[in-house]
């Protein structure tokens, strides 16, 4: 009887989910409500978690609840600590969810709400969740070893080296692109720049509190920090209105980029307790709180989706970024659907905390579904805006013009009516001078979130406060990623250079630290600066590059997982990792090819370089702009080289893995499996 009831309940969930997704896919002519997105996604996740992840756990991976995890066997109370699975879920989710699932869907909304939403849901269920779960499980069986180490042990030394290089490459591009998102959100915005600047002394105050006054009291310090941050958001309005202070915090793109680069260098060199750790604690609290508030806000406000299901820009002529749905929708949305970076987290701290093997399902698969849900909410927030407003905020001046009147004419000509007065009024109501040409996704997402929040608390009167709270929320954890990523990048540079110059490997040496910090900051700083100077807004070049790098890392993780499945004789289940891997390899190689060689200058780096050179040769570039244009030509060629390099990386890895797979399938030896030996858990009978 219970079984029958359970089956009926799951059938009902499946029908409701299918109905909601069917409605958003097929309804035409009248606006869809945002609640359909939430219900459709949530029901799909529930069914996928209940059935597909259970299949992965039982059949494909054979999770063994009697087997002791590294946290139990190697328990030292520090690195390896058996931890409640809900706590690990929270840790893991806070680690994997960054700006990606917010910004990617916002940018992909230019295709309409449908392609991005379907990819978010299907990608997470069939790709991202699988990747995170299997890598977490394989790391769990190998004492919490990292993806690079597992690649070296299971596929070969070359694979391990390729993994390290690709992680470093993705790190540089990731840091540049997230920094660009912050710069584009804060340029000419004294309110936003002041609020974000204030997070630095607030974080330092928290750092001092936790270091000297109340060591390790994270919750007390975070509560103090949160109150101060709210005060800074409110005070930002006074600063923006002050004739003395507003000019101090009104910064141009290049000035902000320089400030972010200097900050990144300084933050990676000062002690972690002073800035990075307190900011990380604060941003984790705010991140989780805002995500929950956004979900509640969407259900409460039930925003109407204004964006059509599909826009005319599916043909690749989009103003936000150029390129057709395939492959660019699947590259633009990485985090939220499938992100290679997650494999680094799944093979980092998380496997050292799991109490039971069976917890890997909830933590690995479950947290990916939660991140996907964040992406769906970002899509709702972006698509709830008037499409004309969305395109005015997200399109560069080079395409829609730099004034509200020019933008309104261009965007209305695309079939999305826009009144210049609307843009002036919107900017005034959120306390900004202008919202035009704010590429990068963060400002339009903040406007969408502000509308949802103000619909719940405060109404139009608090729109400005909510907008800047949302900007602060995005910028806060982007800076955390910047701090932490620069530091990790520094260690990787030191390790790599240490192979040639042993003195560089000394992490305690100031010379080595400053040199490695300078190299990593110089690398991402260069890409950031070129993005700021880019006439097409920078996001058009850098975000696809970031997406390609991230998906290549995901392909690498799935190659490693496929190899282990083959080595352990689970050939009949190899499709669970092989199919998403094949899809990602197809997407990334097509995307790489198009970004390098496409004849459309807005898509192909080489075509754009040639077109600009031709303009210089024809005398169509003013004398004063020739040097800048030559720099853009060089940057495009550099981007082409980087993209080609990433494509070659994955091809080299595939070749290495394919040879290995052939040897396994032909029975010529699978090579040793690096799994730790079985030890029976002491907790098999009861809970710890």
């Amino acid at each position: 009887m219970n079984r029958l009831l359970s089956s009926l309940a799951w059938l009902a969930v499946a029908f409701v989910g299918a109905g909601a997704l069917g409605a958003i896919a097929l309804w035409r002519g009248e606006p869809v409500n945002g609640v359909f997105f939430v219900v459709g996604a949530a029901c799909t996740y529930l069914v996928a978690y209940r059935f597909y992840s259970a299949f992965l756990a039982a059949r494909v991976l054979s999770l063994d609840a009697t087997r002791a995890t590294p946290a139990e066997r190697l328990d030292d109370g520090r690195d390896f600590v058996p931890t409640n699975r809900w706590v690990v879920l929270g840790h893991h989710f806070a680690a994997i969810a960054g700006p990606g699932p917010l910004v990617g869907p916002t940018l992909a909304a230019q295709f309409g709400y449908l392609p991005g939403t379907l990819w978010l849901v299907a990608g997470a269920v069939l790709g991202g969740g699988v990747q995170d779960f299997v890598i977490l499980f394989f790391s769990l069986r190998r004492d919490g070893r990292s993806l690079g180490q597992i690649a070296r042990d299971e596929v070969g030394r070359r694979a391990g080296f390729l993994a390290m290089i690709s992680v470093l490459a993705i790190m540089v591009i990731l840091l540049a692109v997230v920094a660009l998102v912050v710069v584009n959100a804060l340029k000419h915005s004294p309110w936003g720049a002041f609020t974000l600047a204030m997070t630095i002394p607030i974080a330092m105050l928290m750092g001092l509190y936790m270091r000297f006054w109340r060591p390790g009291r994270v919750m007390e310090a975070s509560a103090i920090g949160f109150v101060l941050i709210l005060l800074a958001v409110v005070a930002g309005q006074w600063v923006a209105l002050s004739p003395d202070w507003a000019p101090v915090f009104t910064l141009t793109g290049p000035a902000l980029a320089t400030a972010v680069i200097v900050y990144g260098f300084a933050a990676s060199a000062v002690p972690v307790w002073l800035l990075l750790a307190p900011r990380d604690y604060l941003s984790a609290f705010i991140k989780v709180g805002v995500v929950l508030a956004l979900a509640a806000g969407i259900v409460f406000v039930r925003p109407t989706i204004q964006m059509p299901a599909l826009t005319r820009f599916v043909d690749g002529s989009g103003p936000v970024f150029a390129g057709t749905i395939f492959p660019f929708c699947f590259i633009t949305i990485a985090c939220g659907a499938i992100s290679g970076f997650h494999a680094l987290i799944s093979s980092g701290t998380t496997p050292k905390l799991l109490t039971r093997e069976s917890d890997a399902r909830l933590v690995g698969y479950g947290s990916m579904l939660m991140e996907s849900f964040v992406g769906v909410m970002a899509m709702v927030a972006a698509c709830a805006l008037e499409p004309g407003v969305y395109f005015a905020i997200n399109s560069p001046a080079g395409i829609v013009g730099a004034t509200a009147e020019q933008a309104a004419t261009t965007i209305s000509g695309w079939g999305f009516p826009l009144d210049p007065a609307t843009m002036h009024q919107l900017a005034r109501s959120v306390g900004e001078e202008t919202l035009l040409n704010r590429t990068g996704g963060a400002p339009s997402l903040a406007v969408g979130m502000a509308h949802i929040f103000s619909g719940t608390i405060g109404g139009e009167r608090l729109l400005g406060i909510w907008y800047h709270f949302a900007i602060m929320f995005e910028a806060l954890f982007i800076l955390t990623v910047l701090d932490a990523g620069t530091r990790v990048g520094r260690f990787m540079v030191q390790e790599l250079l240490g192979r040639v110059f042993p003195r560089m490997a000394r992490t305690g040496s100031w010379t080595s630290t400053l040199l490695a910090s300078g190299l990593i900051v110089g690398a991402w700083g260069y890409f950031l600066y070129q993005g700021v100077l880019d006439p097409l807004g920078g996001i058009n070049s850098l975000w696809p590059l970031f997406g390609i790098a991230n998906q290549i890392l995901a392909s690498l993780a799935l190659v490693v997982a496929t190899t282990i499945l083959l080595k352990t004789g689970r050939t009949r289940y190899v499709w669970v990792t092989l199919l998403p891997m094949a899809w990602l390899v197809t997407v990334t190689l097509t995307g790489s090819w198009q970004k390098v060689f496409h004849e459309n200058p807005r898509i192909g780096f080489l075509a754009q370089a040639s077109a600009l050179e031709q303009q210089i040769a024809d005398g169509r570039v003013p004398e004063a702009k020739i040097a800048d244009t030559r720099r853009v030509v060089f940057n495009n060629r550099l981007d082409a080289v980087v993209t080609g390099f990433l494509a070659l990386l994955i091809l080299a890895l595939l070749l290495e893995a394919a040879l290995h797979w052939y040897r396994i399938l032909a029975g010529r030896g699978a090579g040793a499996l690096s799994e730790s030996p079985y030890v029976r858990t002491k907790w098999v009978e009861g809970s710890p």
Partner: protein
Amino acid sequence: MTARVRSALRTLWRLLREWSGDAAYDTYAARVGKGERVSREAFYLDSLRRRYQSGQPNRCC
């Protein structure tokens, strides 16, 4: 009913403290006993060193 709510809130508070790292020293102290225990400050600094200087990314995009 009140007792149940109180118990649920206590559990939630405990999980929140564990998640945030607030309870890390208490967990450690309970595990190692009084003998070899380092101070709360030393433990905090050591946990930060391990977390951020491992060369492993701990924050995603």
